[in-house]
């Protein structure tokens, strides 16, 4: 395992850039808002790069040019009102340019009106519970068996042999593609947070309160995330898997779930 790591470190150093860029940047994700968030992130990042270019450039220039070993005499100036005003005003303008799109995206992120489907998500130490509102479907979602076995201290199982190590669950949340899914988050014990990077959702599950968030996935696929608020011993072991499927497949899935629920009920 250690050898594997060393190899991968070496491999990374040799061919770092060859790896897909998901490894070093925020994913664009599969919702309109996740893409917008990603763009906003890049925009602010580029602003920072530009400022860094100017500021670090000036610093480096003076490090090179204004060194004593070149025999320069130090200048005597020690203040300039004009300069202070300029470098107060320009950052303010830049910040305004950032703040406007940031606020616009934020307002969209908070607009959870008219959902197509609502799921109540409850955090437990250490698993998630999903309840589809208005349908008779509810279940727990816990760390998948393969990961759970491998994660034990000195388990002897190499995590690299486990598919989606620590990011797999026994029963994922299934939602239809293109539907606006409202998530109502709460917790049964301590604070957890429901985070799926590809959906650009992270929201705290606070016991005693319900917080809303939503997403509308434009693509089908399996999207993985993790609990993002320290919630005790197994905080690292309560992943989230969201399976976005075609609407028909979703209806079929829902029907089977309801059947199993009904069978279970009648069996009791």
């Amino acid at each position, binding site marked *: 395992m250690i050898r594997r790591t060393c190899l991968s470190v070496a491999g990374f150093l040799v061919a770092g850039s060859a790896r897909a860029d998901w490894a070093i940047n925020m994913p664009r994700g599969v919702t309109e*808002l996740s893409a917008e968030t990603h763009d906003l992130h890049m925009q602010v990042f580029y602003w920072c790069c530009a400022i860094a270019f100017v500021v670090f450039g*000036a610093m480096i220039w003076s490090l090179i040019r204004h060194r004593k070993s070149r025999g320069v005499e130090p200048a*005597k100036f020690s203040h300039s009102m004009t300069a202070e005003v300029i470098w107060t005003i320009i950052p303010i303008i830049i910040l305004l340019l950032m703040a406007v799109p940031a606020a616009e995206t934020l307002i969209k992120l908070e607009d959870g009106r008219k959902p197509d489907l609502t799921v109540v998500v409850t955090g437990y130490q250490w698993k998630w519970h999903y309840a589809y509102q208005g349908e008779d479907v509810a279940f727990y979602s816990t760390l998948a068996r393969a990961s759970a076995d491998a994660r034990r201290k000195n*388990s002897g199982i190499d995590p690299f042999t486990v598919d989606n190590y*620590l990011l797999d669950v026994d029963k994922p949340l299934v939602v239809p593609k293109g539907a606006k899914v409202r998530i109502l988050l709460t917790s049964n014990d301590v604070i957890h947070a429901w985070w799926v990077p590809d959906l650009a959702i*992270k929201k705290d599950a*606070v*016991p005693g309160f319900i917080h*809303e968030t939503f997403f509308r996935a434009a693509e089908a696929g399996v999207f993985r995330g993790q609990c993002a608020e320290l919630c005790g011993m197994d905080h690292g072991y309560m992943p989230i898997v969201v399976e976005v499927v075609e609407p028909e497949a979703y209806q079929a899935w829902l029907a089977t779930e309801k059947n199993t629920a009904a069978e279970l009920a009648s069996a009791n």
Partner: protein
Amino acid sequence: MGSAVTDAHGHGQAQAIGHGHDEHGPAKGVRRWLYATNHKDIGTMYLVFSCLMFFIGGSMALVIRSELFTPGLQFVAPNVFNQMTTMHALVMVFGAVMPAFVGLANWMIPMMIGAPDMALPRMNNWSFWILPVAFSILLSTLFMPGGAPAGGWTMYPPLVLQTGDAFPFLIFSVHLMGLSSIMGAINVIVTIINMRTAEMSLLKMPMFVWTWLITAYLLIAVMPVLAGAVTMLLTDQFFGTSFFLAAGGGDPVMFQHIFWFFGHPEVYIMILPAFGVVSEIIPTFARKPLFGHDSMVYAASSIAFLSFIVWAHHMFTVGMPLTGQLFFMFATMLIAVPTGVKVFNWTATMWKGAMTFETPMLFSLAFLFLFTIGGFSGLMLAVVSSDIQYHDSYFVVAHFHYVLVPGSIFGIMAAVYYWLPKWTGHMYNERLGQVHFWLSAIFVNVTFFPMHFLGLAGMPRRIPDYSTQFTDFNSIASIGAIGFGISQFLFIYIVVQCVRKQGAKASAAVWENPKGLEWTVPSPAPYHTFNEPPHVTAGAAFS
């Protein structure tokens, strides 16, 4: 009548300082330290204590980094990992960085403003001696049933209420740290306001003194709030109050608001004195006066003011109403303006100077570059919708280590190299100092830069194990951390060597024509410095 008064005979001016006050040299043996009232002795104790804590906190960081070297659990159980994370942060923040700055304040502020000592010397001693008590209590929790606190240094309820026997010890050690900081801050304020030599007007004060004055106000304003917050945790746990319990009409998130009302100013408490240090060092080695001294003062004050109205940027995912999120985003972004003013002024100070690159200057330069990078990531975090992706990921860990390690810690190291010759009377080993600098500067980036990528790629913080796609960067970070840790032994070696007077003798000025009263007294600085207020001549102070 006490001997102090009769013996403190008058001397003219600055040149008379420092002659034999042998009759008042330090007491012998352990009493010198236990019963100390001398600001230099107390400063030394603070610095030594802080160094010890840095190593303890650093060892915990190394446990964290070792566990995270590869996926899978190798060394510690998950709950022990969480204890390490929690204790690492508490020890570093309250045990290493804050006491180091108080130590520097003790040593330097009286010398920089021409005061005979700190204003309240006995209380000064107590501020220090509370710390060993606080940290003995805190560190002893590692050995208690249920282990040390593991709920993160932010101590969010309800999780923190699941702490075992360690819980009340955690609360009371935080109380003690607060008590120590408050008394220390009162001392700093009173010293600066009341003990300056007559000719030093407020705006003539050196930047280090200024930034510490502002820091001290922040401390007095927020440490009691932290005390209140943890007191509520205590009563919720043991006396049935409902502050953080929804069923009783409270709210777990209320704790976060109160904590971060303390917590955000706290991060500026950890950086403002470093700003001050850098503002002392850059002019010396650029051989040019600090650019825009007054606007630096206003900038630092604005930062302090703004720091009170941005706290909820740590809570963008807790489900605040939209207006709250917008307000805290805008206020947070605003802090970039005064901080930028500082960065630009430092750059302008170097501009057209005649620079040399001794170790303190090197650390200050690294501070400039790397703190700014940390500031940029801070700005990115301030943007709410992106923060929803960054929050509680390693991107945040990268951000705050950039401002804390090459920020605060480098600031402290720069200060130590800069003033060490003044303290000991001997030069440190410059060549080794530079080696230490380069090792630290390189490894700090190897450690923390990859964490940006990890965070963006979706790795949450505070986890003992991770999915395999995060392996590469974690391994690199761990290697960097070990390298950084080992490099710090060199620092200890250099300092010890200098304290044991193994370097060349230092002149009073130490550096080439530095500004400031501390450079008018001999090196090593005599046990009692300014028994008579010195005159602030044009050459001796900033103007």
